[in-house]
Structure formats: C-alpha cells, structure tokens
C-alpha cells in the first residue's frame, strides 16, 4: 500500500489569523509557529509519545548526575542566506537571544542553567545548577528556535530588519508574503536532509472568515485544515467528505487542557467542598458535546491523558446535581449568600456558550452569578492581579509536567503579574514537595511516583476545575501523505510530506 | 365697453365646495361676473372671501381635492372647466397668464431668470433658442428692469422683491396673453414699489389691450387702477359695477363697511397733547447690525438705527413711518431693550436705561409695553388667555388672585367677554386676538406703549376697530404711544406727530398735516406720492 514518495507539488494551507511576523523567536502565536516552523528549526522535536527526536541536534548525551547535557549537531547545515550553521548560533540563541526575548526559556535558564558552551563547532554543552527532569523537553520549536547569530548578535532584536525576511535552517524559504492574501514558501534547495523536502511550494492562505475557510477546503482551494481553522460544527461536516482524512494526533506536546479557575482567597471557593460541589454540578460531557461539538475529552485531572506521568486513578466527579447540593448542605453553606463574578475567556463564541452554561449550572446550586464581560487585556490583567472569582483558562503542557502543569499548583508560583501561574491561590506544601521532587528527579520512576501522588491530592482538593482536554482535529485530503508525524504536529518541518499524484 | 361683445372671460354660477369640517361649505358660491378685453377688473374682499380661489379656478390651478361643483368658466366662449388638461396647458401661459402675490417663492430658486422666462416660450412651441433669448432681453427691458443683459443670468435670490415681481410680469407677458390674472401682486411690496408695479401693469394693459383681473383687498389700489369692481364676501359676490360707482356710491352694506374702514387722515382731531410730562427722551440712539464676514471678507453692516433723537410726552402718540427695512422695528426693539443698543441714551422718566443690565432693567419693563404685529404669533398657543394676561403681573410680584381680577376687568375693557379667560387664543379671530394682545400690554399699567405694525395683519374693517380701541384707551389711560407703521394713512389718522424714517434716520417729523401736505424731504414726498388711491377720498363716498 505504501507507495514511494514522489517529489514536487504545492501544498495549500491556511494561516489563521494572519501571523504578525514569522520570526518564531519573537512571537509564539499559533500561526507564527505553523508557518515559521517550516523556516526555523529547533534542536529537538518530539514524537507522538513525547520521546525526544533529533532535529538540528543529531544526538545528545545526558550525564548520570543529570547535570550535563551534550548535543551533537547535524552536519552541513546552512542558513537560508548560505552562511553555515554552527554551535555558535546555538550558544547565541540560548545565552543571549532567548534569554532576553523568550520568557519561558528565561525562567528555565535562570533557574537551572549554569553555563552554555561549545567545545567543538558541532557540539553544545549545557551545564545545570541542579537536576531538572524536564530539561530535555525544553528544546521544542516554540521554546527553543535557533536564531542566526550573524544576523542578530548585537542588534535590537525586535526592530531587526531580518524579522521581515526570516532566515532559518528549515526545509522551506520565504518567497513572498502578500499581506491579507497569502504567504508563499518555496523549497530550500540546500536543505541538510539530502533529497528533501519533497514538496516544491507551500501556500499559507489568509482567509479571515471561518465559514469561508470551510468553503475553501470543500472547494479544494486548500488541502489542510489545522485545528481551529474552522468552527467545531464545520469539522463534523467536513470530515465526512470523500477523500478526506482526519486525525487528532499532532497535539500531544501541547495537549491543551481547559479548566475553571476558582479564586480560593475567599469564600465560597476557599472551601474545598464548594469546589467539589461545583465539579459535580457541571455536566462536562454536555460541554464537550454541545459547546465544543465533541472535539474534546472530559479531563480527569491536571495532566492531559496523552502526556507523560498521567494517571486516571484519581477521585472522579460525575455530573450529579443532587449530590452537589447535598455537599453544600452538609457543609452548611448557604449559596444564596454569595454572588460570584464569572469572567469568561474572551476567545470567541464557543467559550461564551460555555460561560453561559456554567453560569446556569452554578446558579442551580443557589449561587448568584454575574457574567463580567472582559476583553483579552482585561482578562489577563484581572487574572494577573488576582481580581476575579471564577474564570476559565487553559494550559499547554509542553511535554513534561514540570514545564506546563506544575506552574499552576506550586505555592511559590503565586505571583502577581501573569495569568498563567497559580492565580487561584492553591496552597499545599505536600504538593509543592512532590512537584519539587519530581522535577529534580534523575530517575523517571521517582518522578512518576511523585507525580501520581500529587495528582491524587490535587484532584481531591479540586485545585482547579478541570473541564476537558481540547482535541484539535487536523483535516486533510488523503493525497497529502506523512502530514502529521510528531507530537508537535503541523509545526513540524514538513520535510517528509509529499503529495500523491 | 359695448355690452353685446362676448366677454373675454365669463364666470357663470361658479361654486367650489370646501372639504367638510372647514368653517363654511363653499369657498365660492354661485358667483358670476364678466371680464372684457381691454379692461381691468378688480376683485376685492376681506381675507378668506374667495378671491384667490376664483383666480386659481380660472387658471385650473386648484388643488386636486377642490373641484368646482357647478357653473362654467367661459374663456373666449370655451368652458375651461370641461377642457382636457393638455388643452388647458396649451392655453396657460399662452393666452392667459398669472402673477402671484409672493414674489419670493413664486420663482424657482435654482433656475436663472432667463431660463424661467424662456421656458414659457419653449413649452409653447418656440424652438429657436436665439429667438427666445432675444425676447427675454426685450421683456426684461420692457418691464423696466435695470441692466437686463446681466440680470437675466441672475438667480432669483439676487433680486429685490420688486424686481422679482417684474420678472414674474415679464414671464406672464412673454406670449402676450389675452388675459392676465394678478393675485394681490403688490401686497408684499413697499408702497413705492407698489406704485411702480401698479403703474407698469396699467401701462402694459393699455399697450396690449389685455383683460386684467386684479385681486386686491386695498381700496386705494382699486381706486387707482380698476375699470370695474367685484366685491366678494365669504364666497359670494355681493356687489359689482363700474369702479366709479362702487367706490363712491356703494350699495351693499358690506362694501360700505369696507370703504368706511379705509384709513383717512381727516378723522384726526388735533388734541392738545403737548402739555403732558416728558416721559421719553431719546438721544443719538444707534444700532448697527453686523452679519456674515469672515477671515477674507468684510461683514455686512447695516446702520439700522442711525443717530436718532426724539422726545415723547404722556398721552402723546408718535407715529413712526417708513418703507420696509428703514429701521422702524429696530428702533422699537431698542427702546424696549429687546436688542443691544450700540450708542446713545434712552432717558425714561429722566434716567438712562441703556446702561442697565437685563436684571436691573426687568423691574422697569412693566412701564414700557408692546403690542405686536401678528396676532397669531404674539400669543402663546399653549396658554389660555387667562394665563397670558396674568403671567406679566405675576412675574412682577402681583398675587395670582389679584392678577386674575385685573385680567377679567381688562377683557371687558378691550371689549371681550370675560369667559374668554379660560379659552385658548386659537379660538379667537384675528381682531379678537389683537385685543388680547393689547390687554396683555395694559395688564401692567404701562406708561409707554410701543405698537409695531399692530394693525397691519388685520383686514381693513378689523383694522379700523382696533385703531379705535387704541385711541379710546389712550384717552382713558393717558398713555404715551409709539405707533410704528408703514402705512402713512394710518399714521396720519391717529398720530399727534409723525416721524419719517429712511435708512435708519429720521428724515422728517412733525404733525400729520405738515408731513402730509407740505413734505419737506424728498423721500417723504416720494412716499406720499406713492400712496394708492390718493385722488379718491373715501370720506366723500355716499355711505
């Protein structure tokens, strides 16, 4: 059945919304990564099982004490402008560029990294201050894109003209960007994987309206729909079209997980029983099915089921209104005394529907709920200032709990100023200890054991109200082969993708 | 006028019903009269008597919802009422033409004078643009417009009222119609302009031998131009005949009443008013209006009141006359501080009121009152007569109860029933309303009354009653009155002294007989010469 790959052809995709720039070091929004992922590359990539795979690093060695990481780079890699790629670029990227421009890397670098050196032109060595079990997961494209030193060193990164003409090591080069219309990439003839990529051209079309995007796919104008390109209800229709296949794979590294954030600084949410009651009051199956059109899976706890260290063995919160009411009654809580401000996540219609639904459910318990409409700026500011009662949020997991998950539960991460910390004020020293233990573990088993225990505690205490794991569906015409291969899905360099004739 | 000739126009038993719900059943009822070629027929009557209605009916210009219910209009023997619209269109403008009352609105504001005149010829078959053009030029010259070559390219808004009326006449004459209907063509104009236009119409009529139907309410005009007269009252022709006869030997009581009411200066009985105390002493009063103007252009400056001085005594009536725009109203407004004064003094009972602030002047207002021109506009339609009469005293600190008693007395004084107290102004006729207006002014026991064109909007017969009332009141209350009017005859009839204003200045003043019989200033002379019907003395009519 497997025909040999053929060369040539153009692949049509959609960039939605139109990315502001393609320089992934400065902007990590979805479309930027999608398009920029064909131009820039990172040291590693990750399989759908989240195991590290080679990218610009051909191999890597971790010392037994877990403190020294040595990467060996691919040979004959050239930047798109013809300059050779070397370990200097990696050191510059890690030590200068990303430290300044990339908040997530900066945190890791200041907390764990002692030094970054290149003993040989094709070798880079990271020395850590203390062991960090997730370190090997920090080299994905969105976290660690390699930036050309010769263009950026000593410049103001944000105003560097090279941002408009991105130069990377990836399989495709930017040919033309017609704003509002399309981004056109062409084959990098000097790509370091011999004979690749198969495709000649990539088109990323800009189609601002979701309904038109669906039509564009139906009409064959585009071959691929990325998760989020079309509305949920359109997905149901489009995947039934002939000659079309779909997959939910390719999001394992991100595994976005949606939850309610209940501010535990004051009543009613400071009482764990209220949080439990609310979990019982919400029919999460209903949300997945009717609000998100079945594109998701009810979450059981803080870890997405596709990620490392996940355990299903935690307390469950089935939809059960009477039970929820009973919990409150037993606790002697009078819901009518409380008015809860519900702050919806301003990301569009489905999220609004979810807020409306959750409001109704909580009101059935007797609480009063007012929806506090805010914009994205207001949302992040209020959340960052801890000025909220109840809101929604979601987190990317980035492969390892230490990178994407723990930040929401650690008591030392109760920091004003970011919406992506422990803003709900969950404090449990035991949990802190377990996460610390796991992050510093050199052995996987130790980490797994600590994470399992942590999950049980967190779920029992309903540190957050986990709703569901988002499932992003990639839809493509069957003729497009090898599209989704890794855990970063369509952000992966499409050097293996080909189109059958 | 040889009788057997078929008349140019014969109106026979014409009746036009009004829509139901109006004050009477027919606008005109069963009216008949003839108009012969080469004569001027005047139709006179009070407002609403149906004069315009007949004129419009002849031209076929009645609104859709008004249709003659009976009778004929025979024009050169053909009944216009049964004619098809397209045939009527052929007649209109070619064989019969019309000039309207309001020259301001009767011309299309967006069309050049030339095009408007040429259009008549165009629609009646004159295809040659050059011929039309030449004719336009001739016509403009013929009606006495200055600089016709330039003027024809002007838009109507650039022309004065008299000029516009001349254009209208030129338009009517374009195809030399046999019949010209003029519906109060001079009512909106100054006396001097009126005299010119009347002159023009008479001249043309003579020259072209047209039949002219001239609608007016002014017996002076009738006396000046009419060959024959038709008198109408409430839609009925009450009397018709030769002008000579009707003017001097009216038969019908209505006609007599009208003629009796025509202003006449002889009635004035010189009274000794000069002894009263000096109540008003105006010195070098000035008022200048500035308007328009901007960064690149100078403002238009009008010296509406230019260095005016006069005095007034208790019990005296000073008439202020002059043509439109001469500054009469402005003078009145300055005296009452209804507008800012630019210079001079107004000594009221010896002290200057000009420098007083609005607040400081308010207590003095009750001594100086005003009677306005338009009895419809001068009464608040949302207030009862009682409210109108008591508002003033109440604003001046009188209790409402006292004010009410006073108001009822005043109603009796001005000849209205006390039941009027609770009614709204809309329920009264024009003359009655003007009485209410006078009562309002008197409610404050003023010492000075300014009456600005207080009778101009009224029909002659009502006018006479109101004038009489004013004179009567003055005798009883010994008030000083400043009587502003554009009608010299009225001023002569009731004033002790007359001041003639011209372009913001008083050019002449003195007792009526002096101003009338021995005018000194050229402008006064012109003004007097222009009074219509000067040769006719209504006093001599056999009533």
């Amino acid at each position: 059945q497997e025909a040999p790959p053929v060369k040539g052809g153009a692949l049509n995709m959609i960039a939605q919304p139109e990315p502001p720039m393609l320089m992934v070091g400065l902007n990590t929004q979805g479309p930027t990564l999608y398009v920029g992922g064909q131009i820039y590359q990172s040291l590693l990539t990750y399989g759908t099982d989240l195991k590290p795979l080679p990218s610009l690093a051909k191999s890597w060695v971790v010392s037994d004490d877990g403190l020294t990481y040595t990467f060996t780079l691919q040979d004959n890699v050239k930047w798109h402008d013809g300059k050779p790629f070397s370990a200097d670029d990696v050191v510059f990227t890690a030590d200068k560029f990303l430290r300044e421009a990339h908040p997530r890397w900066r945190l890791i670098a200041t907390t764990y990294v002692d030094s970054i050196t290149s003993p040989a032109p094709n070798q880079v060595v990271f020395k850590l201050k203390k062991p960090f079990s997730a370190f090997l997961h920090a080299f994905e494209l969105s976290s660690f894109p390699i930036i050309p030193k010769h263009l950026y060193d000593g410049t103001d990164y944000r105003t560097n003209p090279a941002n408009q003409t991105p130069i990377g090591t990836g399989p495709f080069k930017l040919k033309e960007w017609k704003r509002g219309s399309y981004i056109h990439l062409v084959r990098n003839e000097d790509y370091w994987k011999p004979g690749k990529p198969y495709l000649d051209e990539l088109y990323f079309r800009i189609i601002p309206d979701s309904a038109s995007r669906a039509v564009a796919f139906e009409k064959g104008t585009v071959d691929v729909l990325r998760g989020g390109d079309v509305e949920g209800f359109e997905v149901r229709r489009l995947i039934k079209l002939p000659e079309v296949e779909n997959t939910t794979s390719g999001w394992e590294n991100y595994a976005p997980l949606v939850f309610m954030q209940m501010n535990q600084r004051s009543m009613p949410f400071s009482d764990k029983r209220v949080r439990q009651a609310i979990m019982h009051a919400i029919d999460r199956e209903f949300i997945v099915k009717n609000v998100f059109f079945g594109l998701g899976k009810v979450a059981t706890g803080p870890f997405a089921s596709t990620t490392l260290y996940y355990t299903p063995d935690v307390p469950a919160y089935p939809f059960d209104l009477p039970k929820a009411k009973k919990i409150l009654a037993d606790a002697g809580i009078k819901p009518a005394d409380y008015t809860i401000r519900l702050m919806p996540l301003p990301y569009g219609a489905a999220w609004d529907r979810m807020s409306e639904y959750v409001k109704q459910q909580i009101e059935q318990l007797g609480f009063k709920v007012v929806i506090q409409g805010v914009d994205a700026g207001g949302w992040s500011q209020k959340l960052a200032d801890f000025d909220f009662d109840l809101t929604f949020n979601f987190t990317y997991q980035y492969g390892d709990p230490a990178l994407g998950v723990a930040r929401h539960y650690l008591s030392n991460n109760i920091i004003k100023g970011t919406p992506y910390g422990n803003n709900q004020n969950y404090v449990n020293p035991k949990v802190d200890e377990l996460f610390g233990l796991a992050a510093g573990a050199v052995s996987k088993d130790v980490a797994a054991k600590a994470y399992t225990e942590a999950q049980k505690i967190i779920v029992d205490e309903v540190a957050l109200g986990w709703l569901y794991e988002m499932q992003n569906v990639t839809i493509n015409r069957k003729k497009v082969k090898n599209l989704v291969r890794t855990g970063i899905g369509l952000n992966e360099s499409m050097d293996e993708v080909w189109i059958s004739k | 006028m040889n009788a057997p000739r078929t008349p140019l126009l014969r109106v026979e038993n014409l009746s036009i019903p009004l829509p139901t719900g109006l004050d009477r059943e027919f606008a005109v009822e069963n009216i008949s009269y003839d108009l012969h070629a080469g004569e001027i027929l005047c139709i006179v009557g009070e407002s609403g008597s149906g004069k315009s209605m007949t004129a419009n009916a002849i031209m076929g210009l009645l609104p859709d919802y008004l249709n003659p219910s009976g009778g004929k209009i025979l024009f050169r023997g053909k009944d216009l009422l049964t004619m098809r619209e397209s045939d009527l269109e052929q007649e209109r403008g070619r064989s019969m033409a019309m000039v309207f009352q309001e020259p301001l609105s009767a011309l299309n504001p967006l069309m050049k004078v030339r095009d408007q005149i040429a259009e008549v010829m165009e629609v009646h078959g004159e295809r040659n643009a050059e011929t039309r053009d030449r004719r336009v030029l001739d016509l403009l010259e013929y009606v006495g417009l200055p600089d016709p070559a330039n003027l024809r390219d002007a838009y109507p808004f650039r022309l004065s009222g008299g000029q516009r009326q001349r254009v209208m006449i030129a338009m009517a004459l374009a195809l030399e119609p046999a019949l010209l209907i003029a519906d109060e063509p001079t009512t909106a104009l100054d006396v001097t302009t009126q005299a010119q236009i009347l002159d023009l119409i008479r001249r043309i009529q003579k020259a072209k031998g047209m039949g002219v139907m001239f609608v007016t309410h002014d017996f002076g005009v009738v006396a000046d131009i009419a060959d024959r007269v038709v008198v109408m009252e409430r839609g009925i022709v009450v009397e018709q005949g030769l002008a000579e006869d009707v003017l001097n030997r009216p038969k019908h009581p209505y006609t007599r009443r009208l003629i009796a009411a025509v202003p006449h200066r002889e009635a004035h009985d010189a009274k000794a008013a000069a002894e009263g105390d000096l109540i008003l002493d105006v010195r070098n009063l000035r008022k200048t209006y500035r308007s328009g103007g901007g960064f690149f252009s100078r403002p238009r400056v009008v010296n509406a009141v230019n260095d005016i001085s006069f005095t007034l005594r208790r019990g005296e009536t000073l008439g202020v006359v002059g043509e439109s725009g001469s500054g009469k109203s402005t003078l009145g407004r300055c005296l009452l501080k209804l507008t800012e004064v630019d210079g001079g003094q107004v000594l009221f009972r010896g002290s200057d009121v000009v420098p007083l602030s609005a607040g400081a002047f308010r207590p003095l207002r009750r001594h100086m009152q005003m009677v306005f021109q338009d009895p419809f506009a001068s009464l608040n339609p949302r207030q009862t007569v009682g409210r109108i009469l008591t508002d003033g005293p109440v604003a001046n600190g009188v209790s409402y109860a006292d004010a009410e008693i006073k108001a009822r007395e005043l109603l009796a004084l001005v000849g209205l029933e006390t039941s009027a107290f609770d009614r709204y102004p809309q329920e009264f006729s024009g003359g009655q309303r003007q009485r209410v207006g006078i009562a309002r002014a008197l409610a404050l026991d003023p010492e000075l009354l300014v009456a600005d064109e207080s009778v101009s909007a009224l029909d002659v017969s009502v006018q006479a009653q109101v004038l009489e009332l004013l004179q009567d009141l003055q005798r009883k209350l010994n008030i000083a009155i400043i009587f502003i009017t554009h009608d010299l005859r009225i001023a002569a009839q009731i004033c002790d002294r007359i001041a003639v204003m011209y372009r913001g200045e008083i050019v002449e003043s003195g007792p009526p007989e002096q101003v009338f019989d021995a005018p000194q200033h050229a402008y006064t002379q012109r003004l007097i010469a222009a009074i219509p019907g000067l040769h006719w003395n209504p006093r001599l009519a056999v009533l």
Partner: protein
Amino acid sequence: MMNFFKRYARNYGALIGLAILFVVVVLAFAAPLIFPVSPWQSVGDPLLPPSEDPAFPFGTDMLGRDIAAGLAYGARVSLLIGVISTAVAVVIGVSIGALAGFYGGRVDDLLMRFTEFFQTIPAFAMAVVLVAIFNPTIVSITLAIAVVSWPPVARLVRGEFLSLRSREFVQAAVVIGQSGPRIMFTQILPNAISPIIVTASLMVATAILTESSLSFLGLGDRNMMSWGFMIGAARTMLREAWWMSVFPGVAILLTVLAINLIGEGLNDAMNPHLRGRKG
C-alpha cells in the same frame, strides 16, 4: 386632545404599530410568568427545529435553550435600552439645544460646534468603541447609544428654540418681565414638545436597532438575553439552524417597524400643517 386621538386613529399603520407594540410590551412584562425558567437554562435537546417538539414552538439553540423564552426576555432588553437611552439622549439634546437656541451667539456657536462634532463622527463606530472600551454592561450600552444619538435632538430643539425665541409671544414674555429660564420652560418648551416627542419615538426604534447591532457584534450585556445576541450567537450556525437567527430578526423587525409606524402616526396627528390656525 380628543382631536388628537381621532387624527391618530385615522392612520391605519399607526394603529397596527400600536397593536404590535402592545403585544411586545405585554410579552416583555409577562416574560417571567410565561417562562419561569431562565432563558439561559438548557431545557430541551440542543438544536431542535421549530415545532418539532410542541413545548418549543420556536425550537431550541445549541445549548437546548428555548428560543421562545429568549424572544420574550429579549423584548425586555430591547425596550428597556431603547427607552432609557432615548430618554437620556433627549435630556442631553434638549438641554444643549435649548441653551444654544435660546441664548444664541457665542453659546450657540460653541454648543453647535460640539454638536456637529458628535454628528460628524460615525455614530455606530463610536458606539462600538465606547462600549468596547467601557465593557459591555447595560449601563455602558445605554449611555453609548445616548451619546451617539442626542445630536439630532439638540439640532431640532435648537431650531425650534431659535425660531420660537424670535416669535412675538416670546418677546412679549420678555417685555412683561419674565426671566430667561422661565421663558424657556413655560413659553418655548411647551411649543417645541410635539416635534420632540415625534423624534424621540423614532429614536427609540433606532436605539433598538443599535442595541441589537452591538449585541450582534458581541457587545451586549452578557447577563441579559437580547435579540441581537441571539442572532450573533446563531450566526455561525446559519447552515444548521436557520431558526436561531430568523425568529429574533423578525422580532426586531416587527418591534422597530411598530415604533416607526407609531412615530409617523404621532407626527401626522401632531402635524402643525394640519393643525393650522383654526385649532
């Protein structure tokens, strides 16, 4: 007064408008009685087409909420915002217009420049910006609509005041010694009231349209079910569930139409041309 009603009743359209509005008002007031359950509550299967289930004659939306309940509760929001924002706009407009028209001169110039400013800038865009920045709540929406809709009232009132001010009965009031404010309130305002009423009634209609447009764009108060919101939420489901957008649209159409008809009826009945001089 009798005359006024007679004249109004002569106008067929105005009567129909009154009838429709009456139904809408009753619906608005009786909404909690007819639909005791909140319109936000899922009460049935999602996406039921109309008349498939007799309990939901207008169908249900994607969360199983009763469209009929939404229509009834939406009537409240539309009328509430329409009437209050108009009232606010009228108060602003009358104050500014009255001051400008009565005092004239500099005051007039200044106030009219101010009014022109608000009249020139695109009203709906301005409303959008205001609501977006101050966050959509019933208060901010009402005020935003009022802020963009008062200029015509101000101009109208100014015009009326300007012409009435020079009318003789107002001068008469000055001459008898009434004070400025008193003249404005007792002499002029009563005479300017009928055009204000007519304009205001038409503005209610416009305000309802504006509110629905804002809601449609997602700028409605999130705690209140409104017609525009229902259409906005249904927009992406046009292909699957036409009824979600058709019914609220018809509701807006009928309400606005009714108010316009009433406004025209009022205009005809109060028309100064017809009233004439004979009372």
